[in-house]
């Protein structure tokens, strides 16, 4: 069971501002039935068209989606449009005393609906992401949920996300077939800037000691986690110049495709440490 805060439970069990505003100034819709959640937001402005005097919502979705929508409508009442636009998804989550990370996409949905509503009101035609609106600005990265690189980059930057898993929790991207996860990793690297790139770039010249440290690092951080995912493992036996000796463990030991796995390890090490590395499988 999700560990929802009392505030989330309260806004789910007693949602504020459910319904519609027939003469709303701005309406924003995001999500779809296929995606598993959708939000329609109605905003009413005062006579001078400056401040939000009323906001209502309709939401299809889980408990935290309903609670996030309810929180959003409470937060934006009384704000000017610019003030409302400044509300971040993190602030929606904070208002609710926090959301489980896997549910952060619910707060993103709220913030997005608001942006769509205000942009429409101001005369910009925007297409929110969902299956029916695949044609939009930017390139579709996640085909399952219809999310573009532009949208993902914005959420990555705003929330300082640094793993693909976090991006999934915040946007759903990569959460279905997983085909776009490599692309998401590229976007993270792009957004979080050069230092991530620099860290991964192959060093120019290495002392033997530094090379050995790097080899161990890459095996620990890049290679073994991938083997674990398939129930396998490896152990570093020795490093002799550019020759790296490894022994396969668990499911990798005696696996018919261990030859391929050894080549995969070699490729990784060449890519991230030095071109002259060879990987040899030994008994050990």
């Amino acid at each position, binding site marked *: 069971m999700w560990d929802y805060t009392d505030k989330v439970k309260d806004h*789910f*069990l007693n*949602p504020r501002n*459910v319904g519609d505003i027939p003469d709303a100034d701005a309406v924003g*819709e995001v999500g779809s*039935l*296929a995606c*598993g*959640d*959708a*939000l*329609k937001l109605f905003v009413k402005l005062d006579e001078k068209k400056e401040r939000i005097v009323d906001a209502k919502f*309709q*939401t*299809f*979705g*889980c*408990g935290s*989606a*309903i609670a996030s929508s309810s929180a959003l409508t409470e937060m934006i009442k009384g704000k000017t449009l610019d003030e409302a636009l400044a509300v971040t998804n993190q602030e929606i989550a904070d208002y609710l005393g926090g959301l489980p990370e*896997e549910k952060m996409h619910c707060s993103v949905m709220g913030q997005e609906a608001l942006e769509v509503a205000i942009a429409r009101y101001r005369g910009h035609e925007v297409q929110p992401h969902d299956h029916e609106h695949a044609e939009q600005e930017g390139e579709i990265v996640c085909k*399952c*949920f219809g999310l573009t690189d532009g949208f993902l980059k914005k959420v990555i930057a705003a929330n300082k996300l640094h793993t693909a898993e976090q991006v*999934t929790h915040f946007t*759903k991207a990569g*959460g*279905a077939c997983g085909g776009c996860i490599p692309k998401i990793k590229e976007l993270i690297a792009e957004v979080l800037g050069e230092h991530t790139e620099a860290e991964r770039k192959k060093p120019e010249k290495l002392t033997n000691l530094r090379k050995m440290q790097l080899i161990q690092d890459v095996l620990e951080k890049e290679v073994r986690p991938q083997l674990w995912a*398939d*129930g396998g493992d490896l152990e570093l036996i020795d490093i002799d110049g550019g020759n790296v000796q490894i022994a396969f463990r668990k*499911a990798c030991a005696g*696996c*018919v*495709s261990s030859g391929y796995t050894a080549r995969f390890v070699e490729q990784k090490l060449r890519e991230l440490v030095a071109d002259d590395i060879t990987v040899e499988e030994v008994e050990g």
Partner: protein
Amino acid sequence: MKEIYFDNNATTKVDEAVFEEMRPYFCELYGNPSSMHFFGGQVQKKVDEARGRVAALLGAAPEEIIFTACGTESDNAAIRSALEVFPEKRHVITTRVEHPAVLTLCRNLSKRGYRVTELNVDGEGRLDMNELKNAVDDDTAIVSIMYANNETGVVFPVEEAAAIVKEKGALFHTDAVQAVGKIPLDMAASKIDMLSLSGHKLHAPKGIGALYLRKGVPFRPFMVGGHQERSRRAGTEATASIIALGKACELAARHMDDENTRVKAMRDRLEKELLRLIPARRINGGGAERLPNTLSIAFEYVEGEAILLLLSEKGICASSGSACTSGSLEPSHVLRAMGVPFTCAHGSIRFSLSRFNTDEEIDTVIRELPPIIRRLREISPFGREILAQHG
């Protein structure tokens, strides 16, 4: 708040008689059945008795029962054994709607160079035996098909499947975790080679399972070490849990008629009333043969987690095929394999009953659920049309 528990396909209450039966084997009769002294020997007798009780429920011989730690272990032991018995065979057949215990294993095997066929199901969750006939060949080491599906309760024709498979010389395994104790089984009259069961689905504790292994079927142990379970599953016996499982099986045999009459009648009434009271809904697998205790019902335009949380507020425990409850973002693989539309799959709820449920509890669900669905449809941007149509 007293729980109204309709999630018995997830796990069950330990029957108090089962708990009483196992209780002395912690602090008093804690001996090791392998020991030479009287103190271990008396535990050995109770373990033997438990083996006999499990065998009796299955219509099997006691030596055909191997105790394991859980259903997942039994599934792993069966499938991995078959692959070792036939090292030259590189093909495995299963279904798209298996429990992850089997499905994840098979998908891992496919990454290791095995050819894995996943049989499809139709819109009602039924298998096509012709698809199996065409898939099984001389290269097939094992076919693993669940006896009954945990999400929909749909029962598969495993005897017919086993006959097809045996003719081709492959082994046949069934994950019967949801079937044992709910529908009568008779291994003596069956062609099934291996069958998995789990204690906590039939009112025994968690952490105990068993594998039925037909006499004469070759077997390579998954767990090696000591000589326990005739060297087919090493590790000191979980004596108290084994004794509990034996008692649970004895009780299950005794309550089998009740399960298929009273429990089924409660399920049928729940189904009929929910269909009558709530518009825009469908029964998942309603056109197929189903377990007597399971009802999977999908409500359009509302989301399952929200339904469960509101039911939970009323003390009612059920489960959902929705994405949001599992931490995954896609609805259940079973409902997707059946082609249940997304509009419904996200709003699917499973009620799974046991002999401990009462008619009053059914009345409570019939009273509480319709207003919950109505309330969520009022919140949903898609639900208003339904409400407008149906009032």
